[in-house]
């Protein structure tokens, strides 16, 4: 679905479909906006007329005028609040939906196989860019429509007074367009530059946070600060140009409005038969009529810098899948462990160097297979292909039940495949939160005792002062309170909790001391028969416990 979605030339237009579902609210917003502007026009006309009457004719206006004025004052205040309230509610509702659409895109395309993708960049899109679009959703469509309706109606109403006044108004409109349109492109370019530099700041921030240990260890604080300052200055340089551009556009718009006032003034004087008492009211009313148009034009100008944000958000939403194949829907969940049949599996990263040369292997249900190979032989690639993180370029993987029924791994539906086949990666992350919350990522229904038992089996019993909170003990983000060996056992426990039928371990014992390694090897022996285990390792002592061993890359 994503491959065919075409981004329109102006990415802002691509944002409009996300408003579907809010159309009724948008129409209401436009109506409220029109009414609100009408109240303002009434106020301007009333005030000017009352004063002109007093000044020119020394007369007091009729009470109806005063009542009209007071009503307009109250109406104006209430409508102003209501209009802004609904338009912002709509906008933030759409933003919430956009964030989830972005997450779906990210879930498809992260982590990318190509270098260059950075979570700091994507996070900036999900938070900063989306937030910027508030402006688009809250202030654009309904307001522009409202302004247009009002303007056309206003010109029509002024027609009987002769061509001069309507002409002056149209002239003002034309002038507004003339000063705005040529600058739109520049606004977009400047905005893109600023947003890009902001993203770079976000990327640096993520690196600074993730690499704090190295920055401190190597004394790179000043270097990091300098990079951050340099990037900040790039933002500032763009920002300076952008804000002086926006200020210029605003000044020019204002000049147009002032010019229109003068033109209407002169046009009104030269209109024969117009009572002088009505003159100021006419000028004030016309001016208020032009105000929403001028604001609409301002919106269009201020919108341009957000094009870049819109572009990145739709890019994120349409991120191509990194797996390369959609999983099937076959129901396949036989009892007992599963065997695996791998035939001529091949995989190449985008840079052309094959990561895995044609590989075939066969694992019996319940077997414990060891896979070794030199550094860079494709062990990790094979492990990821086995659990369907990526689709192979060629070759096939089948799951085989104890009864000998074989099914293509990619045909099995996602939920049951993930329940049956799992992988413990070399540096699987541990998430922010408690032990139990972490385990719930794998098994939402797991209870405290089940979790303790799984940890025990993985060789990480929660004993001692450190674990005083038991399963409610909080582990920091990225498992910062755990040592490397503890992390490995923690992630193994998380996998064991799922009771998989195939368990793939990628260098899980690498950072374990011999005692912990023994405990882990014993734990694997404990699930022998009920789970097929594939251990990728370079350690002789880990491989020694396997039923059979395969050397990759020879």
């Amino acid at each position, binding site marked *: 679905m994503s491959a065919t979605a075409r981004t329109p030339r102006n990415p802002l237009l691509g944002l409009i479909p996300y408003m579907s579902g809010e159309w009724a609210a948008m129409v209401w917003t436009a109506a409220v906006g029109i009414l609100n502007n009408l109240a303002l026009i009434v*106020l301007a006309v009333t005030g000017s007329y*009352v*004063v002109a009457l007093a*000044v*020119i004719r020394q007369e007091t206006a009729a009470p109806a005028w*005063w009542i009209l004025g007071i009503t307009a004052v109250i109406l*104006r205040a*209430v409508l*102003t*609040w209501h209009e802004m*309230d609904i338009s*912002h509610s709509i906008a*933030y509702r759409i*933003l*919430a939906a956009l*964030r*989830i659409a972005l*997450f779906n895109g990210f879930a498809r395309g992260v*982590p990318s196989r190509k*270098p260059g*993708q950075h979570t700091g960049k994507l*996070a900036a899109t999900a*938070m900063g860019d989306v937030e910027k679009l508030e402006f688009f959703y809250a202030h654009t469509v309904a307001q522009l429509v409202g302004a247009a309706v009002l303007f056309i109606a206003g010109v029509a109403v002024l027609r009987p007074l002769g061509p001069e006044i309507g002409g002056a108004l149209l002239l003002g409109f034309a002038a507004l367009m003339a000063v705005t349109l040529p600058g739109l492109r520049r606004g977009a370019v400047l905005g893109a530059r600023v947003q890009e530099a902001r993203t770079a700041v976000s990327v640096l921030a993520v690196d*600074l946070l993730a690499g704090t*240990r*190295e920055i*401190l260890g*190597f*004394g790179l*604080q000043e270097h990091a*600060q300098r990079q951050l*300052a340099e990037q*900040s200055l790039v*933002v*500032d340089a763009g920002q*300076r140009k952008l804000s002086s551009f926006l200020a*210029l556009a605003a000044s020019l718009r204002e*000049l147009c409005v002032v010019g229109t006032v*003068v033109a209407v003034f*002169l046009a009104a*004087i030269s209109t024969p038969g117009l009572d*002088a008492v009505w*003159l*100021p009211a006419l000028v004030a009313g016309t001016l208020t009529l032009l105000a929403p148009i001028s604001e609409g034009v301002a919106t269009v100008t201020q919108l341009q810098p957000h094009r870049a944000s819109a572009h990145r958000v739709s890019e994120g939403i349409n991120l191509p899948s990194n797996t390369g194949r959609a999983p099937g829907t076959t129901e396949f969940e036989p009892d007992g462990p599963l065997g695996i049949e791998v035939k001529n599996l091949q995989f190449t990263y985008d840079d052309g160097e094959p990561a895995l040369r044609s590989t075939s292997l066969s694992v019996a249900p319940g077997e414990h297979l060891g896979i070794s190979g030199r550094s*860079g032989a494709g062990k*990790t690639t094979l492990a990821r292909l086995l659990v369907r*993180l990526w689709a192979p370029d060629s070759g096939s993987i089948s799951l085989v039940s104890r009864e000998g029924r074989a099914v293509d791994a990619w045909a099995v539906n996602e939920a049951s495949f993930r329940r049956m086949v799992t992988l413990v990666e*070399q540096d*699987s992350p541990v*998430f*922010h939160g408690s032990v139990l919350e972490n385990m719930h990522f*794998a098994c939402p229904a797991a209870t405290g005792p089940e979790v303790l038992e799984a940890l025990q089996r993985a060789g990480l019993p929660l004993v001692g002062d450190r674990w005083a909170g038991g399963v409610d003990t909080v582990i*920091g983000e990225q498992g*910062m*309170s755990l*040592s490397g060996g503890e992390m490995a056992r923690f992630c193994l426990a998380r996998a064991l909790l799922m009771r998989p039928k195939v368990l793939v371990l990628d*260098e899980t014992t690498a*950072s374990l*001391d011999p*005692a912990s390694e023994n405990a882990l090897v014993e734990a694997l022996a404990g699930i022998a028969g009920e789970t097929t285990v594939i251990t990728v390792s370079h350690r002789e002592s880990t491989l020694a416990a396997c039923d059979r061993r395969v050397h990759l890359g020879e």
Partner: protein
Amino acid sequence: MLVNKRLLQMTSGHRGPLFGVTALLCATTASYWLQAWFLAQALAALVLMAREPAAHDDGMYGPLVPYLVGVLACGVGRLVLQQLHARLASSLGSGVRLHVRRSLAHRLLQPERLRDTSERSGARRLALSEGVDGVDTYISQYIPHAFQLQIVVPALLLWIAWLNPLLALALALAVAVAVGAPKLWSKVLAKRGQHHWDSYEALSADFLEALQGMRTLKILHAVPRTRARLNNRSQQLHRATVSTMRTSLVDTALADFGIQAGLLAAAAMAAIAAMGQGPLAGPGSAGMTYFLLMLSSEVFRPVRDLARQWHAGYLGLSALGSIDAAGGADDGKPTPRWEGQQADSGLEKVHELATIHKAPTSPDDANALDRPETLTLDRVSFRYSDADPWVLHQASARIRRGGLTALAGVSGAGKSTLFDLLLGFLPVGENRIRLDGRPLRPSDVSVVSQRSYLFPGTIRENLRVVAPAASEAHFWSVLDAAGLGEELRQWPEGLDTVLSEGGGSVSGGQLQRLAIARALLVDRPVLLLDEPTSALNAELAGLVLAGLRRVSSQRIVLMIAHRPEALAAADTVLRLSEGQLLTTRQPEAATL
């Protein structure tokens, strides 16, 4: 009174530009007064024409032209003022942003953060990027507008009072409603703003964590659950935003009410005054009537301008919470890290610190010239808190140059803690750890941590950053020593191979050797390695250990090790057990 005190404090050091921006805003507003005068005169001329038609012989427009030209001239003059304002406001914002970001980064780059389990990098990322931007907008936009209001409105009211006191009174009342009423619920608003930012921060943290752990989430089939959780957070944020905004918008509506009601009242009074019936009739000419009326409307311009800044105001206030959570920008006591190098707050101090820290890797560094002899631990004690057991208790050891020293001990014995003490990440008693008799400094130590972080970019950039002066040949020599040189020479891009975020584009073993090469490149007398061979097969481990052995003739090398091959290769083994260090010499160390 309209400005948050903490945020105002952040402008110290930027007062000049701040006053400049405020002055330009005031001047811009004053230009509208002049424009109002011209317009009033034009209207008065019109009134004159209406009363006595054909009294002028220079045509219908004649008397109007000079005034209308004046109106246009005001517009053009304002264009210039607004350009100046935009530029000065930008440079004010730029200065504030640099300052706040720098001191925030300084606070985040502290070793304490490495152990704080409540830390969430997504939240900190938000503070460093969008949070700092929010503060900038508050300072460069909101504060000057608030100042302008406080200067211009009273001045204008005084002027009007001089012309027509009753009108001034009515206007003052309207301004009081527009500006003062929101104060009644400013506390509620601040609280809601905080709540809103908390939700924003939580969402940001969850988002970044999900992005960084996406592969694991997929493997665990936790993507749908994570989506549900984010959706929940997103809805929470939506509710928090809308509830904050609703209150905030009441301010805008009230301001609008004050403005319109004030203007209508002004019109009424002007009308009464013009007819000479009022209790305090103003000057009778039409020009003055119109001028007064327009000035009345000008009273509200700064109020309206400030109301338009509500977005900036509310972003700044909520960002303040996030910046405080990240350690605050300017106040708060910094933790002294090590002797002779007290970290301090404030930009000047940061610069001072920077000069102390400058180029510890330069070739003319004194450390590199003399070979170190002994690293001494003299009755070192450490525990994380008074409630925790001792990790090290009166532990002593001497680690010498020449030969590999292994640090062994069961999992959780405190090996990594000892490394952190040596690195200065944890406080240690004065003079307890010495290098050849003097206290060990962090700049004496080069390290390979267990989970090394390589920065996204090329391999060359990763090496260059720790040793800006090193030559290409030096790069290759350390890569060879780390056992990666031969392999890397065969890669098509060589040193220009691009590493993705977190080094995800190379294998675990390659990453580990890159980290070792990087540590070797930094010419420091002490080299610490945390399990340097964990991801390597026996052959590569041998290569790396042999390389380290060569290095140990120049530096003191200490490595955490529990693999038999690494232990066997060590000449000395320090065993950490129950807070004590036991030294064993291995004369039969395996020479690989």
